[in-house]
């Protein structure tokens, strides 16, 4: 018996161990059918393992934190620096793109303006200013190499900017209209009052030579009159911002420039002016004298004695602006119309483009009985004398041939207020 047990000892022990486990399983299966409860031995086992697991988990978390918050962050500083640089570059890029977009918008409006304007222009970029606080001038990137000449008008889509003062091979100095030495012949759009627009030391624009009894209101549009023979006629110059009584019966009118003179970037240099369609080209029979007669219905005709007329003893009424020696025909409205034989008629006959200009009487300070025709084109200054026989009116036709701007300085329209 002992030999049998010794011989199969291992097997017997195996069977015994298996039997015990099967017995335990059977007990568990039977009890699990009765009630579900956690066995104490499981609790012990779990209690023995879970602290170790908890420690290991904490170690693992610590290792992860150490890795992610320290070792892994070794390159974070450099990465942060790179990201900051990237942000800076992106900001610069954003600014550049914004500038490009704004520039494109401006150029688009400038191009649209250029397409509308019948004149030859050269676009230019403002590259700097004079650097002086007292002067209002800017440099543009176009010069004599691009056929830029002095006294060429410089405009934007908004309005007149100034004129070319000095020309260099590749750059030009532009004197803006708000410079103290600048002067622009202008007129008010509604009332057609003419005046001279000057700059002040503060960079503001003052409209001079407008009598105090004229009706000028803030908001009135100021256009170029063309009388200075530099700026094309009819271009927006600005709007009246403030009207105050000035010295010597003149109004002190402040004008807000139409062009943003403080933020100039792209401008157009007018190299060749093509003024408004002439009478000969349009075929519309409207003359300055007609306009004048329509605008002055209350001005009484002043009989003057025409030299060389037959000595009938009867005065002959001559319309202001009538060219001496011309024929005078009565108009249907009772106004005598003069037809000059020379001047505009001659130019039109020669086929030279001429422009029409608004003609008005001088301010009320002049003698009412002797109105003086003032033509913006001719640049006739208002005459205040009672014996003001027009000196230049008979000689200056209301239609002036267009003259391309050349290197030679044009004749200033207002001799005493010659723009610098």
């Amino acid at each position: 018996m002992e030999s049998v047990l010794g011989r199969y000892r291992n097997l017997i022990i195996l069977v015994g161990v298996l039997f015990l486990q099967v017995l335990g399983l059977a007990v568990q299966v039977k009890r699990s059918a009765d009630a579900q409860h956690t066995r104490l031995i499981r609790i012990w086992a779990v209690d023995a393992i879970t602290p170790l697991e908890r420690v290991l988990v904490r170690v693992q978390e610590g290792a992860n934190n150490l890795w992610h918050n320290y070792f892994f962050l070794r390159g974070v500083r450099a990465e942060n620096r790179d990201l900051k640089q990237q942000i800076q570059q992106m900001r610069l890029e954003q600014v550049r793109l914004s500038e490009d977009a704004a520039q494109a918008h401006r150029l688009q409006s400038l191009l649209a303006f250029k397409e509308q304007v019948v004149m030859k222009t050269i676009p230019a970029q403002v590259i700097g200013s004079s650097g002086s606080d007292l002067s209002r001038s800017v440099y543009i990137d176009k010069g004599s190499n691009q056929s830029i000449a002095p006294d060429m008008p410089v405009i934007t889509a908004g309005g007149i900017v100034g004129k070319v003062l000095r020309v260099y091979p590749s750059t030009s100095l532009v004197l803006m209209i708000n410079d103290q030495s600048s002067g622009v012949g202008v007129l008010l759009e509604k009332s057609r009052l003419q005046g001279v627009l000057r700059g002040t030391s503060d960079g503001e624009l003052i409209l001079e030579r407008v009598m105090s009894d004229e009706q000028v209101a803030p908001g009135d549009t100021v256009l170029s009159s063309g009388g200075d023979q530099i700026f094309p006629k009819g271009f927006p110059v600005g709007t009246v911002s403030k009207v105050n009584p000035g010295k010597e019966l003149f109004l002190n009118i402040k004008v807000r420039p139409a062009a943003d003179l403080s933020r100039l970037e792209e401008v157009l240099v007018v190299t060749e002016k093509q003024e408004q369609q002439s009478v000969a080209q349009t075929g519309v029979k409207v003359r300055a004298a007609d306009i004048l007669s329509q605008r002055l219905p209350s001005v009484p005709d002043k009989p003057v004695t025409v030299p060389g007329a037959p000595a009938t003893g009867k005065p002959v009424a001559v319309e202001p602006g009538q060219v001496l020696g011309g024929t005078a025909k009565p108009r249907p409205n009772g106004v005598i119309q003069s037809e000059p034989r020379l001047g505009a008629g001659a130019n039109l006959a020669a086929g030279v483009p001429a422009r029409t200009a608004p003609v008005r009487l001088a301010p009320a300070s002049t003698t009412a009985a002797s109105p003086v025709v003032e033509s913006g084109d001719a640049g006739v200054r208002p005459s205040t004398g009672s014996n003001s026989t027009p000196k230049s009116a008979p000689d200056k036709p209301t239609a002036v041939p267009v003259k391309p701007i050349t290197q030679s300085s044009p004749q200033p329209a207002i001799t005493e207020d010659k723009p610098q």
Partner: protein
Amino acid sequence: MPITYTSGEQIEVYRFSLPVTVGVPLIALFLQAFLPRRIFSIFDLPLLVTIFFAMARRNPISGLLTGAAIGLAQDMLGPYPIGIYGIAKTVVGYGASSLGAKLDVENAGARLLVTLAFYLVHQAVFFTVARGMVNLTLNWSWSHGILAGLANGIVGMVLYFVLDKFKQRT
């Protein structure tokens, strides 16, 4: 595959220190419970430890007791009734120690095949007990069983190589 038959006198029997005897199975149980199930569920580290100790000691009683203890401990941490893994690992421990007493399975190839075979035996006993006694609904897949056996064999080769360092000659 060099599985050589040797006489009992030629086979060396090893023993292990108490820390290794207790600590290695506990670590295996702990890792089995701690390591992510999705990746390491295919491995049965307590089974590999059971096979290693059983083959190294070459004592069937020691082997079956080691298997029973490790299996019961594994049962305690698992959801099934206590004894399923215990019975399976008892059988494996007994078989591995009996095989180790007759065969020299010291090389890697023999260990791979022995591990694969005992893994299948373990699974067979486990499924038998689980289905037959506990009435658990477990599905058996031969492909999965063989792949898992090969995977455990490969891991076992590495593990046995490490645990060989703790062997002590009797």
